[in-house]
């Protein structure tokens, strides 16, 4: 038992911190510090810098451009990257399609897609959810019918994040509608988003942003060699993907960054004639969040350390659900802190006002952005299996009920 970071881990953290400090473009950092989500081009720009350094393929083997880090190192990297704040690595590219291809892809598929995924030459999106399915993924209906060396795909996906800017989509489809169990008869396809028959319709989120989409498939032809793994065995791939290494599922660095930003704002806003930072209730709220973050940080290291010990494979730890539930609770609590600091200034969407000003007003901009993050992250306890579903999982996995 060694409950503290090794000197190597401490040195590694310093190295990561220094690299980000020296290489993260200032304009990106400044926007994110004000609480804005990174733009697509920000994400691409930063991921390419990381890829050039050999750091983008986070958990990929070295032969495919991965950095060869331990799970704890990955954790450290993710946290430093979030706290910076820097754009997060494209999860679709790096923690989803990458590992899937590494595990199930043909040599041809790996060669074709992995290097481009690492560099975001292709932007991937995930075609899983369907209307009426939600957390009950296996009830999906989008159909793929084999015709010669193609599948003909018909159906609809929903909540498809970034589909409107994506080059490729990995897609779950039903190839055998007569399978005994719903989980059988599902296949996993890679689809070029430029294929005729694909229509993307935006879903605007309650923060006003356009991240999500409905995607309609109307006789979309997908070559059979773009199926990953065996026909009708796509559920195995999906399970692997969903259960795959939950490193970073808690997004603790993001919560920390929101607390840091709130404290920073609290220095600037006035509360009954004194800076809000001096208010004892505010300070206690921050202290309680720091405690909760610290507990989750250690739980997270326990999970990834066990993962490392198991040689980086092994079944997903049921503690992953703890990371998801507690992590999203913190994301929501910390973004809520930020809007409460913004106070009355959180009410307006200041974009028009800011555009009319002669010089930037960081406090106004941060106030407005804080609400965007708060609203958008109401979804954190919904996506990837609602927190209610996570507790169902814990009930089964840990309690055995």
């Amino acid at each position, binding site marked *: 038992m060694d409950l503290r970071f090794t000197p190597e881990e401490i040195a590694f953290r310093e190295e990561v911190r220094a690299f980000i400090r020296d290489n993260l473009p200032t304009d990106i950092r400044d926007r994110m510090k004000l609480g804005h989500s990174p733009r697509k081009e920000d994400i691409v720009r930063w991921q390419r810098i990381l890829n050039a350094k050999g750091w983008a393929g986070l958990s990929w083997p070295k032969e495919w451009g991965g950095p060869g880090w331990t799970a704890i190192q990955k954790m450290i990297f993710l946290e430093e990257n979030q706290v910076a704040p820097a754009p997060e690595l494209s999860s679709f590219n790096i923690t989803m399609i990458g590992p899937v291809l590494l595990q199930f892809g043909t040599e041809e598929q790996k060669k074709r897609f992995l290097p481009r995924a690492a560099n975001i030459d292709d932007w991937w999106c995930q075609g899983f959810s369907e209307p009426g399915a939600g957390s009950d993924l296996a009830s999906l209906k989008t159909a793929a019918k084999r015709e010669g060396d193609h599948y003909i795909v018909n159906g609809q996906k929903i909540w498809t994040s970034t589909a409107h800017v994506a080059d490729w989509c990995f897609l779950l489809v039903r190839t055998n509608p007569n399978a005994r169990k719903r989980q059988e008869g599902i296949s996993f396809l890679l689809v070029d988003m430029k294929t005729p028959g694909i229509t993307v319709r935006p879903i605007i989120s*309650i923060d006003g942003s356009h991240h999500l989409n409905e995607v309609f498939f109307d006789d979309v032809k997908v070559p059979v060699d773009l199926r990953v793994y065996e026909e009708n065995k796509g559920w195995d791939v999906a399970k692997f993907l969903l259960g795959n290494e939950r490193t970073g599922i808690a997004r603790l660095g993001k919560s920390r960054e929101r607390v840091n930003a709130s404290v920073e704002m609290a220095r600037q806003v006035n509360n009954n004639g004194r800076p809000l930072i001096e208010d004892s209730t505010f300070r206690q709220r921050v202290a309680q969040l720091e405690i909760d973050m610290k507990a989750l940080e250690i739980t997270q290291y326990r999970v990834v350390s066990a993962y490392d010990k198991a040689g980086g494979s092994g079944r997903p730890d049921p503690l992953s659900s703890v990371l998801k539930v507690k992590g999203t609770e913190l994301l929501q609590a910390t973004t809520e802190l930020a809007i409460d600091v913004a106070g009355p200034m959180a009410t*307006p969407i200041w974009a028009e006002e800011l555009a009319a000003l002669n010089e930037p007003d960081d406090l106004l901009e941060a106030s407005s952005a804080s609400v965007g993050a708060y609203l958008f992250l109401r979804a954190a306890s919904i996506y990837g299996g609602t927190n209610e579903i996570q507790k169902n999982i814990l009930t089964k996995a840990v309690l055995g009920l």
Partner: protein
Amino acid sequence: MDFEPSDDQRLLLESVSRMLTDTYSFAQRKTYLAAPEGYSTAMWARFAEQGLLGVPFAEEYGGYGGGAQEIMLVMQAFGRVLVLEPYLATVVLGGGAVRIAGTDAQKKAILPAICEGNLKMAFAHSERQARYDLTDVVTTAKRDGDAWVLDGSKTVVQHGDTADKLVISARTSGERYDADGITLFLVDTSAPGLARRSYATRDETRAADISLGNVRVSDADVLGEVGKGLAIIQAVIDAGIAATAAETVGAMEAMNEMTLEYSKTRVQFGAPIGTYQVVQHRMSDMFMTQEQGRSMAMLATMMMDEEDQATRAHNMAMAKVGVAQAGRYVSQSAVQMHGGIGMTEEYAVGHYFRRCMVMERLWGDPAYYLQKLADEVN
């Protein structure tokens, strides 16, 4: 104690509800939103026709002669459908200030025009540096001959962009944070030197920053006594707290009904989600929270007739915190119970969520009022 509405109140409520059922579906509301004002001028005219714009004003000024209870009933009905029109700004706040502090001449000039739908008002008190501190006023009004000259700026004046007349606070004496020395003025938005920059707020209504550069106001447009504006401001804000408390209750009712309905139709893992006990208990919690919030909204309403200032302020603070906390819990829960669809602009629940978020921080959030109450613990 008697919590049942009187026959007149029941009639009022029924007529408002009937009108809103006909005119304020979520789809109809979208069309109102699309107007440049961000609301429907036709609906405003209809409110006037039905006498709603005169609810709290005396009959001699063309009003209905109602009080806080009638406003509660109307605002609750408005909250159920997220009425967009500037009722709060015009009738409760701006008009309320005139009702509370106006001279007979001012009332005659303003209240009938409000009742008829010909005059919209807004309440311009907050300044950008002030957060929730009511005495943090640095806008100044200086005597110049017969007139007052206003300089400074006001922020997040709700519906300030479409108002015809503003109630503006300015410092006529004393220093920032002084309770004395704040004076209210009635100012036309067309007054030379008054400029407005308008923007959207998170609840889809619009607000404005007001800048005042050498704006001249006559003595006749001083509202209340010179230097004694703070008490009026507090009374106006109390009316605003009571009104938005009722609106929040209406919004909670709507969200709870929506959630219940959704839970009956949304199938997950082979059964409607409303059959899962965890969902049922969450909805029970939402219901209990709504009812506790309703009680607090009633408290705010009953305090509008309380004459002891300390009692009134104490209870108003309690009501404000209770309702805000209830609205936050119910709206967060409603989104969670809806899952993905609750996160979308197309679906109603997120709009209620944001309206609650905005109301929660009007004139002070729970932390602000809790602090006040904590100071009184003895």
